[in-house]
């Protein structure tokens, strides 16, 4: 299990490949992956950048607790979670969640659970910089189970 916060740009596919090769080669049958990427628009406005604030100590604690709950609920071989903090720009990867298991059901469901719990509970806050020069806080996360 690995959980990390980074203020540096990261390539989620490279992180995934490296972690898998080091920790898991030959052991897993299923991998489920979610990657969140920064968009250049939100609520009808162009967005040129964003700052991700977090609560040092509590954020890590909450993420560890969410992954622990997933491990109790599903038969997971391993999990990898990386979340950006600080200043980001459109097209940057913001979050990577990967879950490995023997069979697909556990990996799929655990990956979704971790992502939805992170969205609800992990103390991160986004402040957007708009193309107009204005700055604004994102007020809430959308419901991940709605299709629109």
């Amino acid at each position, binding site marked *: 299990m690995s959980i990390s916060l980074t203020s540096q740009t990261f390539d989620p596919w490279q992180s995934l490949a490296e972690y898998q090769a080091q920790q898991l080669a030959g052991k897993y049958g299923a991998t489920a992956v979610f990657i*969140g990427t920064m968009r250049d628009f939100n609520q009808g406005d162009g967005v040129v950048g964003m700052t*991700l*604030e*977090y*609560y040092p*100590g*509590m954020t890590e*604690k909450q993420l560890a607790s969410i992954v622990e709950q997933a491990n109790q609920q599903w038969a997971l071989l391993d999990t990898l979670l990386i*979340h950006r903090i600080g200043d980001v720009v459109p097209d940057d990867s*913001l*979050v990577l969640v990967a879950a490995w298991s023997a069979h697909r059901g556990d990996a799929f469901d655990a990956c979704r659970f971790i*992502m939805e719990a*992170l*969205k*609800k*509970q*992990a*103390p*991160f*806050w*986004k*402040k957007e910089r708009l193309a107009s020069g204005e700055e604004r*806080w*994102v*007020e*809430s*996360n959308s419901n991940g189970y709605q299709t629109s």
Partner: protein
Amino acid sequence: MSIKVRYFASLKERVGHADAELLLPEPLSASQIWQRLNPDLAMPEGVLVAVNMEYAGLDTLVNDNDELAFFPPVTGG
């Protein structure tokens, strides 16, 4: 008793600072502490509370050396 209070994100901007220290003769609830520290600012709807980095309720009693945090709904991911 001494309590450390922290504010994050938009709430930090509304309150005007990130941290506060409070000395109290007896434990108070999180909402009582908000009122004491911010008498002119009603707590915005949806504010979340944590005590010692665990989620807590507005009526949770805060004790000596606790860290109390107030923050808006989270928007990570």
